[in-house]
């Protein structure tokens, strides 16, 4: 994955970049499965590798395929900023519980109830679904509205009406 991410930075051909991003998502999905997050992996594969890639390809089809210039002037400050932020995070990780440690606080406070009692309270085997659709169903409602917003937004931005008018403008410009 690291290699993929690095390749995304270096490669200038946007088509390849997009394909690599899809690959990156797929790899992430694979890792999710390793980490027992099957639902997430499913979604990531469908969305990250599927929908996003298709949309990006669609965008590229409408715009351009190659990145044009280099942005050396920004590279150094950007790198410094990233490194500082990263260092901050690494600093933060130093006090984290070990990976996979079952005694970490994260597994002690809220989660046990979902695992132990959802069977009685909700009655579904898939705890993720129980949490998603019942315990934290309100988040999911919000999520649905996010998607709704995005879809309406895309309609507003590149829906049909505007394009038609735009085309007339272009024609007019071409004439003059």
């Amino acid at each position, binding site marked *: 994955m690291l290699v993929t991410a690095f390749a995304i930075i270096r490669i200038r051909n946007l088509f390849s970049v997009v394909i690599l991003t899809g690959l990156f998502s797929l790899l992430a999905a694979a890792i999710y499965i390793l980490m027992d997050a099957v639902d997430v992996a499913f979604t990531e594969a469908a969305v990250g590798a599927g929908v996003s890639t298709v949309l990006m390809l669609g965008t590229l089809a409408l715009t351009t395929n190659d990145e044009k210039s280099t942005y050396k002037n920004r590279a150094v400050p950007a790198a410094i900023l990233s490194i500082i932020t990263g260092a901050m995070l690494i600093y933060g990780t130093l006090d984290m519980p070990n990976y996979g440690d079952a005694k970490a606080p994260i597994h002690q406070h809220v989660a046990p109830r979902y695992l132990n009692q959802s069977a009685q309270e909700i009655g579904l085997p898939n705890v993720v679904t129980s949490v998603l659709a019942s315990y934290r169903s309100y988040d999911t409602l919000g999520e649905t*509205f996010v998607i709704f917003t995005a879809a309406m937004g895309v309609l*507003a931005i590149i829906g049909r009406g505007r394009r038609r008018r735009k085309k007339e403008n272009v024609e007019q410009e071409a004439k003059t």
Partner: protein
Amino acid sequence: MITDHLIILQIIIPLIAAPFCVFIRNANVTWALATVISWICLAISITLMQQVMVTGEIIYELGGWAAPWGIEYRVDMLNAWVLVIVTSVGAVVTPYAKLSAEKEIDNDRLYIFYAMLLLCETGLLGITVTGDAFNLFVFLEISALSTYVLISMGKDRRGLTAAYRYLIMGTLGATFYITGVGLLYMQTGSLNIADLGKLIPDVADSRTVQAALAFMTVGLCVKLALFPLHMWLPNAYAFAPSVVTVFLAATATKVAVYALVRVIFTIFGGVDILEAVQISDVLIAMAIVAMFGGSAVAIYQTNIKRMLAYSSLAQIGYMILGLSMNSVLGVSAGLVHLFNHAMMKGGLFMVMGCVVYRIGSAKLGDMAGLGKQMPLTMGAFVLGGLSLIGVPLTVGFVSKWALLQAALEKGWWPIAVLIVISSLMAVVYIWRVVEVVYFQAAPAGRVAVKEAPLMMMIPMLTLIGAAYYFGIDGTTTMDIAGRAAESLIGGLK
């Protein structure tokens, strides 16, 4: 019965109204719907405010699941206050929106515009009432996405790039925020804000928690456009449709400030985090730079919407300055400025909306001679400008008074002086406009301009009037802000 569910009604009424707009698709009907809804919201928020005053904190368990397991809504003085700010601006903006939006937005998209406006308001309200750190993120995104769309809907193509840049910055900010939430969750196992507040003191010296604080703060500072994370704001405000600018300027950054307050004083309140890790020094420094940078750049702007946007940056600096003083006075100064700035900046941007409606431009040069042609509108501008400067009898004075007092109480002389100097800079940029508007003759080519239509004028005068009403009677607002501040700081000392 229904009073028990007011909190949730506050959110879901506008939320459900948004898809209705999609069904209706008729611009006028959706507008009427949005207006009615926004007034209902205002009524609800005021009722909530009264309830909170009587009964204290109100808790609502969504889905019937108790707090750390489910998501809860939790309204105290502070939220109720922010709710009132957002809904009252919403209630004034929607009537205003009709004409302005018809002029500046493609008519076949108006229904989407109103849906987005409702969603944006819902998102902001959702951020405000929620007691759950992750739920906050979800509503942050609802409001953010709808904001991007709203900004891009104008006819100026620069609105598109502004929206895009905001999208990048905003998403980065939101991602920073959830990174921070994740780190906190890792250390405590909880996502509930109140619960976190209890758990944090035990793990406060963990480096993870410190990193979490840093990430959440940075993420929210992007949203509230604190210097140096403000780059998205001026263009977004300048090139968005006027009515969108009014709404955003008066609400969006305020809610982000609120979220920051929650993080600092509720989540990290138990450990007096401002002192503990010296964030306050950093915040104060940034706030002061914002105050000066914002005002200084504002002086050189030729687009007045942009000028006001930069002035907003400076005003955000005041708010953050007040909050980072970490005293009851300081925090209440910051909180009261939330409201006050919403009134005056909303009013000023409404003036600009009227100007754009009539002359189709927000450039200073094009506004010459408007003082004669649009006397009421321009009079409102002067009044709003005076408030921005902080002249007595205006809300700006109330905030500045409180802020200065807080600074002096701490014995921070230089800061008091800086506050004063920066408000003098406001004199300069407001003055530039007054001069052009009143003292220059209208350009010869321009067709005679009429006064703004009544439907835009009334909301505009309402906001400006409010800026004076609450300037003359600052006790109500100061009292509420003071109580909110006490409840925040009180938990800490």
